[in-house]
């Protein structure tokens, strides 16, 4: 009664792929690149602020933030849409990447904090005299960047190794990932853990010496995020069209058969799971300097479930779907929370129910823009 939990989603892989993207796909991809790398920067930086076409700081930050979420949804799709493993703990990898970057940003504040001390304000407040050992070297950007990749990667590797080795599947896996992210949230909420307790990190001043709120810095972060999103799209495309991707979808559709064919699913699952976590970590690291805050609520179980819903709304098993899903849900959220704050949860809840009941393939399953070929 627990088997066949997965509804087969849009056709993936197969020998029909010649290049990474179709001709139409490449032109859309190029168009997106031009808009993100040329049009938006010009609209934000070159036009005067009172011009009607000026792209305000609010929108740059919002779109930048949504692109980070889209990267997370993409990572979710690799593990859920293509490999059939529903993680409800991806928020923790996102937050760890964010915290790693946040440590560097906290150190870059220098003496400009409220207490003008060597230490971040929250440590002064706790009456600590020096940095704990795990803060060492975080004043170097390269080291923080290394942590962004290593922390989520290592956690995912260890967690995944034990879970996949014990052949934990389906709902059981989803539940222990929830337990993991909840445990991390409780840990990071403690003041004594040394990451600022429930306030987290905020009030950043500069990154690599550039003032963090300056329009040019903001635009640079935006462009880097866009490059990461487009890069990860191609990487994902490359993986799923490769032989590795074929094995992953086979694991999703019939894991026992894959085992009997002589493959050990453990390493395939472990690879894609760890990669997915690292991608999430990078998204988190790009998110923090743009949004200007990271706190433990990013690790709340609800946040991780929301990631799954972006992916489901967009359409599992299509790489572009989750990107669209993340954009649609989060644009909806920022509009709703401004226009009717009390109704957002109703809308989100209804969206969950309607998508699972009526749109198992998500928005991408509507195929509005595709040719109706069999």
């Amino acid at each position, binding site marked *: 009664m627990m088997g066949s939990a997965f509804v087969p989603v849009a056709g993936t892989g197969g020998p029909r792929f010649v290049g990474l993207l179709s001709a139409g796909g490449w032109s859309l991809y190029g168009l997106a690149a031009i808009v993100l790398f040329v049009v938006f920067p010009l609209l934000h930086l070159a036009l005067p602020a009172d011009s009607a076409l000026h792209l305000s700081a609010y929108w740059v930050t919002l779109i930048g933030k949504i692109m980070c979420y889209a990267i997370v949804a993409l990572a979710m799709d690799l593990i859920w849409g293509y490999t059939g493993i529903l993680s409800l703990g991806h928020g923790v990898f996102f937050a760890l990447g964010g915290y790693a970057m946040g440590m560097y940003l906290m150190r870059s504040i220098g003496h400009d904090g409220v207490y003008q001390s060597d230490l971040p304000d929250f440590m002064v407040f706790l009456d600590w005299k020096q940095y704990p050992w795990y803060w060492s070297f975080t004043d170097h950007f390269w080291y923080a960047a290394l942590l962004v990749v290593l922390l989520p990667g290592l956690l995912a590797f260890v967690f995944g190794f034990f879970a996949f080795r014990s052949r934990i599947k389906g709902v059981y896996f989803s539940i222990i990932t929830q337990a993991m992210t909840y445990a991390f949230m409780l840990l990071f909420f403690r003041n004594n853990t040394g990451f600022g307790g429930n306030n987290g990190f905020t009030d950043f001043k500069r990154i690599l010496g550039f003032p963090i709120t300056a329009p040019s810095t903001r635009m640079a972060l935006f462009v880097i995020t866009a490059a990461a999103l487009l890069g990860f799209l191609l990487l994902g495309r490359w993986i799923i069209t490769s032989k590795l991707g074929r094995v992953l979808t086979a694991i999703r559709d019939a894991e026992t058969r894959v085992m009997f064919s002589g493959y050990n699913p453990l390493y395939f699952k472990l690879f894609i799971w760890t990669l997915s976590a690292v991608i999430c970590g990078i998204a988190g690291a790009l998110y923090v300097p743009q949004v200007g805050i990271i706190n433990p609520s990013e690790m709340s179980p609800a946040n991780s479930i929301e990631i799954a819903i972006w992916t489901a709304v967009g359409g599992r098993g299509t790489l572009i779907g989750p990107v669209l899903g993340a954009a649609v849900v989060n644009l909806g959220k920022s509009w709703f929370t401004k226009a009717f704050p009390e109704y957002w949860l109703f809308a989100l809840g209804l969206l969950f129910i309607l998508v*699972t*009941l009526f749109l198992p393939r998500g928005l991408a399953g509507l195929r509005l823009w595709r040719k109706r070929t069999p």
Partner: protein
Amino acid sequence: MIGRVFSGVSLGSILLLAAVGLAITYGLMGVINMAHGELIMIGAYATYIVQGLFRKYAPGAFDAYLVCAVPAAFAASGLVGMALERSVIRFLYGRPLETLLATWGISLILMQTVRTIFGAQNVQVENPSWMSGGFVAMTGIVLPWSRIVIIGFAAAVLFLMWLLLARTRLGLFVSYIVDSFMVVVLGGVGQLAGTVYAAVGLGIVNKFVEAWSGAVLAKIAVLVFIIVFIQKRPQGLFALKGRIAET
């Protein structure tokens, strides 16, 4: 020591009341109900309403409100649960991951509904006077009546559940409808027992670790324990053996 075991058992029996429901929806129906907590919440708000009615219209009989509140809570949560099954869950049988997402959506809606009606503030529910105070077991050890009542109530519910599932035609029908009879004999009833041990055990462990390390670390320890435990026994305390386990 005894006091701590006792408060562990009473925490465990609250966990148990919540977990028996989950064990049945998942064990017998294959439905992961993320809105289970909200159904509990509806029961609690029903109690709050009954208490308010008693205070307003029958302050003399206030001590008896609990007797009315239990069926009211039962009916309120039950009605909402029935509505959910008919409107959403019945379309998702056999797809546990989908039920997880859909019921999470339901939980958001229920939560926001209650917040709109009752406000986001906590509301106060007062114990009837016969539940305050305690039973002096030994010098220095007082076992509060409220906890004794909770433990007794949980035991009674559990007994009724067992009777219903194992001794009545309804239980037989449920098990036929839901899946094969074998699963209920081996799994369903077994899962009830597993749930009892797990809930009471977690309650006691939680209270002991809490005394030693503080509430937050105790919670973290319990979560880590659960993660490790599932590694060792992926199918739960009372695992099904053989071919049914893999289906």
